[in-house]
């Protein structure tokens, strides 16, 4: 099951050239671009691990594409996303975020139904991948 979130979630995966242009768009707007990765695909898992520090004061996408390549070399079997942080007054928040890397095989989610009082049912989703310990989830 293909996990989608953030911008462009309705599009096929971006090519490197398209990623570069999106990054350049962020930089032209003055946003700091961050690289984050995780191997827990749950939609409520908001805080991913950061690859290095947020990259402030960059002018050209080449530096970020280099970092992304390095991140893929180490964590190519996990989800990687880019986010653009707008530090200007009044925003001070992430303005764009999109997935740039995903595992070769995405196991999908199991739906748990729990019977609660009064014939109520509580639903929760659990990624099959998350059954394995962190770091081994997408190793084949």
């Amino acid at each position: 099951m293909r996990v989608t979130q953030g911008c462009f979630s309705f599009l096929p995966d971006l090519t490197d050239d398209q990623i570069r242009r999106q990054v350049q768009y962020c930089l032209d707007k003055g946003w700091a671009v961050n690289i984050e990765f995780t191997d827990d695909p749950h939609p409520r898992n908001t805080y991913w691990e950061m690859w290095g520090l947020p990259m402030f004061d960059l002018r050209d996408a080449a530096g970020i594409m280099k970092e992304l390549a390095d991140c893929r070399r180490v964590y190519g079997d996990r989800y990687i996303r880019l986010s653009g942080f707008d530090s200007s007054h009044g925003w001070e928040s992430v303005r764009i975020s999109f997935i740039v890397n995903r595992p070769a095989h995405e196991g999908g989610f199991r739906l748990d139904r729990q019977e609660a009082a009064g014939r109520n049912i509580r639903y929760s989703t659990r990624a099959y991948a998350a059954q394995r310990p962190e770091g081994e989830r997408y190793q084949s």
Partner: protein
Amino acid sequence: MAHSNLQAVPDAPHEPAPSSVDLRREFEAVDVDSILAQLDRELIGLVPVKTRIREIASLLLVERIRRKMSLASTYPTLHMSFTGNPGTGKTTVALRMADILHRLGFVRRGHVINVTRDDLVGQYIGHTAPKTKEILKKAMGGVLFIDEAYYLYRPENERDYGQEAIEILLQVMESQREDLVVILAGYSDRMERFFRSNPGFRSRIAHHVDFPDYTDAELLAIADMMLAEQNYRFSQDARDAFVRYIALRKGQPLFSNARSIRNALDRIRLRQANRLVSDLDRVLTSDDLTSIEAGDILASRVFSGRSDAPVRQP
């Protein structure tokens, strides 16, 4: 918000390579001439440097056309070294060079990141590589100007972290040639020693530009220009005094060409203001405010055989 970020970006269609190119139109399209003219206007003297920059600009223009006609496949090495004494205009020329490279499309953004050893080399193990990479990332798409580059290499300390920065620099200079241009700058003799002990640098640098010292007449012209920019001018006596000042100052230690002239002018303006304020009862004309008299210059300590340090004059 997703909509505003979503732009249709069709891939550029592959145009067939043209078989002939109008050189004049190419030349005017990139408008390098205006930068070269600006260089001529802003920088006095430096004829060999200007000639070299002109040559490099021509080379890049031809290279650009060759690429258009699919005759050149490899990316040219553009890293440079600027050698010369302090105050001879290395930084200014580096800024113009970035402009030229940008207009000709050899760097994408055309900004200049000006760094020294402190910005590249860390203070403890494992500090240098992230620091150097950070700077390199910032310089991507532009020009990285490393002032006094020879300080990166400290042969007397074999565990100096400078070596690590050098290795990262060399690697990026080779593998990401289309992403950034590195300009090394410093005194001629020490740069020469630096290149001798780091042959990797010499072979990766395509253009060596040597900045000569200014002659006395050029320094006077520079002073005139600096004053004119701030709406001041020398009186005839003052000019004669300044000619003598230049001759004397040149013989003293720590003379740094145009920079020394600028500092001297700052102090002369100070003395002129002091002179004007000392007599509060007179009516000033704009002529009084713009003209610098011989006395303002002759009060300098240079004339009494001491060095002209930036301290308050009585």
